[in-house]
C-alpha cells in the first residue's frame, strides 16, 4: 500500500514538474519576444531594490493594514514551503514526519509556528475574500472597472478560496495525526499536540482508527495535491507575481521617473538633418538598419521588461485608483494596459504552440485590437501609476511607446497636436508666436534699466 502511494506520488510530482516547466518555458519565450533593453547595470543597487521592494514588500506598507495582512499571507506562503519540503520527501520516501526524529522538540516548535502561520493565512484570506465579495473595494469592483469582468474577478476569488482550503487541510491533518498518535497507531511518529490543531481534536476523538487513517491520508493527499494544482494554476493566473515580483523589481528602471527613453535611430536621422554628421558617416558607423517601425504597435515592439511587467501584474488596481484620467471617467486604466499586454502575449503564446513554435500573423495588434487610441491619448504622463505599483511595474512606458507608433508611424495624432507640432517645427514654441517675440517679456524691465 505504502509503495503504491509512493509511486503515485512520484508520478504526480513528475507530471506537475513537467507542466510547470512547460508553462514557464512558454512564458519565458513570449517575454523574450520583446525588444532588447539593457537592465543589467548597477547590480548592487538592483539587488538592494529587490531586497527592499520584493522581499521586504516595502511599498505594500504604504497602506499599513493591508500591508500587514499581505505580509502574513506572503510569510505564510514562504515558510509553509519548508513543511511542504518535508511532505514531498515523506511522499517520495514513504515516510511520515521525516524531520521529527532529527529535530526533536524544535520540530514541535516549527510545526507550531507553521500552524500559527496557517491560521494567520486562513484569517487573512477570509478578510480578503470579504473585501472582494461583501465590502466591494472600489478598485476591485468589476462594475466600476471593465477590465475586472469575468476571469480576473473569478481568478482573485479562486486563489483566496484555494488558500483557505489548503490551510484547513493542514490543520485538520495535524489534528487527525495527533489523535492517531495518542491511539498508538503504527507509522504515526509521536510528536504530541500542536498549538492550534489541538483544538480541532474533539472532531476526531470519536472516530475509529481506520477512518482516522483514511482522513489523515486524505487530508495529506488533498493538501499536497492542492499545492501541486496551485503551482500549475499560478502560471496561468495573476498570481504569477509571487515569483516574478523578484526579477521584476531587480530589473526595474533606475533612472528618474520623468526621463523618457531616447530613440537612437532618430538621433542618427536628426544629426544628418542638422548637418552634424554626413549620411555616409552615419551609414558607415554601424549596421545602419532603419527601424521597421517607430514606437510599438504590438508586443514584440515593446521591450522584454515591459512584457515581464505584464506577466508580473497582480491586477490590484493601485495604479488605476491613482490615475487622474481614470478618476475623472476617462477610458484609460493603467491596470488594463498591463492586462491587455498580457492577454496579447498569452494569445501569441497559444498561437506559437499550435504553429509548432513560430508565431503566425493573426492580423491583430496590441494597439487597436486590445488597447484603443482613446485610452493612450488620455494619459497625462503624471507617473502616479508608476509610483503606486508595489512591484515597480511601469504602465507609462508602454503607453508612450504606443503613442510613438500612432503619432510617427501612422501619423494619427489629434488635430490640435499636429498644430502644436507644426508650431514647434516652425516657431520653436508650441503656440503660434513669432520666435522674434520671445524676448519681449523683458522689454519693460530692460527699458527701465
Amino acid at each position, binding site marked *: 500500500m505504502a509503495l503504491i502511494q509512493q509511486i503515485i506520488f512520484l508520478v504526480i510530482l513528475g507530471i506537475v514538474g513537467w507542466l510547470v516547466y512547460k508553462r514557464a518555458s512558454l512564458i519565458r519565450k513570449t517575454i523574450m519576444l520583446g525588444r532588447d533593453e539593457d537592465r543589467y547595470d548597477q547590480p548592487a543597487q538592483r539587488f538592494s531594490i529587490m531586497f527592499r521592494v520584493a522581499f521586504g514588500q516595502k511599498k505594500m506598507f504604504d497602506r499599513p493594514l493591508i500591508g500587514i495582512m499581505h505580509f502574513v499571507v506572503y510569510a505564510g506562503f514562504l515558510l509553509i514551503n519548508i513543511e511542504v519540503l518535508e511532505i514531498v520527501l515523506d511522499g517520495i520516501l514513504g515516510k511520515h514526519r521525516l524531520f521529527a526524529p532529527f529535530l526533536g522538540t524544535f520540530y514541535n516548535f516549527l510545526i507550531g509556528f507553521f500552524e500559527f502561520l496557517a491560521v494567520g493565512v486562513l484569517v487573512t484570506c477570509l478578510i480578503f475574500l470579504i473585501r472582494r465579495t461583501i465590502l466591494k473595494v472600489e478598485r476591485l469592483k468589476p462594475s466600476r472597472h471593465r477590465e475586472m469582468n469575468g476571469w480576473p474577478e473569478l481568478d482573485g476569488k479562486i486563489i483566496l478560496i484555494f488558500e483557505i482550503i489548503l490551510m484547513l487541510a493542514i490543520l485538520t491533518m495535524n489534528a487527525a495525526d495527533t489523535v492517531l498518535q495518542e491511539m498508538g497507531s503504527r507509522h504515526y511518529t509521536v510528536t504530541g499536540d500542536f498549538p492550534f490543531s489541538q483544538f480541532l481534536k474533539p472532531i476526531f476523538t470519536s472516530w475509529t482508527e481506520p477512518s482516522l487513517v483514511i482522513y489523515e491520508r486524505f487530508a495529506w493527499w488533498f493538501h499536497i495535491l492542492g499545492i501541486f494544482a496551485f503551482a500549475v494554476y499560478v502560471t496561468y493566473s495573476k498570481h504569477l507575481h509571487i515569483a516574478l515580483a523578484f526579477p521584476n523589481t531587480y530589473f526595474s528602471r533606475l*533612472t528618474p521617473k520623468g526621463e523618457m527613453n531616447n530613440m537612437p535611430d532618430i538621433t542618427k536621422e536628426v544629426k544628418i538633418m542638422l548637418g552634424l554628421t554626413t549620411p555616409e558617416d552615419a551609414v558607415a558607423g554601424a549596421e545602419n538598419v532603419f527601424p521597421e517601425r517607430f514606437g510599438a504597435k504590438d508586443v514584440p515592439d515593446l521591450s522584454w521588461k515591459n512584457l515581464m511587467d505584464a506577466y508580473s501584474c497582480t491586477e490590484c488596481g493601485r495604479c488605476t485608483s491613482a490615475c487622474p484620467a481614470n478618476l475623472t471617467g476617462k477610458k484609460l486604466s493603467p491596470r488594463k494596459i498591463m492586462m491587455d499586454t498580457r492577454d496579447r502575449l498569452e494569445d501569441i503564446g497559444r498561437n506559437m504552440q499550435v504553429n509548432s513554435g513560430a508565431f503566425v500573423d493573426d492580423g491583430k495588434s496590441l494597439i487597436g485590437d486590445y488597447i484603443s487610441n482613446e485610452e493612450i491619448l488620455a494619459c497625462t504622463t503624471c507617473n502616479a501609476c508608476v509610483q503606486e505599483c508595489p512591484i515597480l511595474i511601469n504602465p507609462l512606458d508602454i503607453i508612450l511607446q504606443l503613442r510613438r507608433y500612432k503619432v510617427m508611424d501612422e501619423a494619427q495624432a489629434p488635430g490640435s497636436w499636429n498644430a502644436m507640432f507644426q508650431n514647434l517645427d516652425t516657431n520653436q514654441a*508650441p503656440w503660434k508666436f513669432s520666435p522674434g517675440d520671445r524676448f519681449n517679456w523683458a522689454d519693460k524691465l530692460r527699458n527701465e534699466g
Partner: protein
Amino acid sequence: MSELIYKVPTMAEMAASNETPEVLFWVGCAGSFDDRYKKVTVAFVKILNKAGVKFAVLGTEESCTGDPARRAGNEFTFQMLAMSNIQVLDMYGVKKIVTACPHCFNTLKNEYPELGGNYEVLHHSEYLQQLIDEGRVRIESGESFKGRKITFHDSCYLGRANGIYEAPRHVLEALDADLVEMKRSKVKGLCCGAGGGQMFKEPEPGKKDINIERIEEAIDTGATTIAVACPFCMVMITDGIKNKEKEDSVKVFDLAELIAQAEGL
C-alpha cells in the same frame, strides 16, 4: 525698491563683453509668451537682480525644449529642438541652468545628456531655497504672509518625476505662512491634467475635468492662496478656480511671485 535697476542680460551680450554668468535662466515658452506666466518670469528676474546673482538668458536664441513633442510621441520634433538647443548651450559654454518650468527642467536635466547636452540643472524652487539658505534672498520689507493659509500643488514633473517635494515647501516656509496640505500631496499628488501633451488638446471624453477634481481638493483645505511651481499647473488651477467662481477668495501664485511679494519687489 524703485531705485533698483533690473537687468536682463542675454548670453550673447555676456559673451560679447567676455563675461560668464553664474547661471543661465531658462525662461521656457510659457515664461516667454503666456501672459500670466510672463509675470512669474519677471518676478524671478527681480529676485535674481536683488540677490545680486550674475545670470543671463538666451532671449530669442531659446527654443522649446521639446517636452510636449516627446510626450505626445513625436520624437523627431523633440530631437530636432533638443539638438539645436544643445548646440546653442554648448556654443556659450553653459554649465548651470535654472528654470521655472518643471517640464523644461526634466527634459534639460534627464533627457538632454543622452543627446550630448550635460548641464547642472535646477528648478527655481531648488534655486530659491539655496538663495534663501545662503541669505542672499531675505524675506523682509514686503507683504506679510503671517497667518495666511497657503497650499502647495505638486507638479508631477517636479515631484514624482524628479523627487523634488521639499524644496518648494521650504521656500513657502520662509514666508512664515500657514502651510496646509491637500488630501493628495507629494508622492500621492494629483496631476493638474495638463501633462503629457494634454495642455495642447481637448481632454478625452469623461465625466469630469482633472483640474476640477484637483481644485475641489485645494478649496477643501480652506487655503486662500494656492502656490504652484509650473506654468501648466498655473493655467489648469487658475481655470479650475474660475470654474468654481472663487477668483475673489482664492488666488493662484507661483513660488517666485510669492517670494517677490514678500521682498517688496
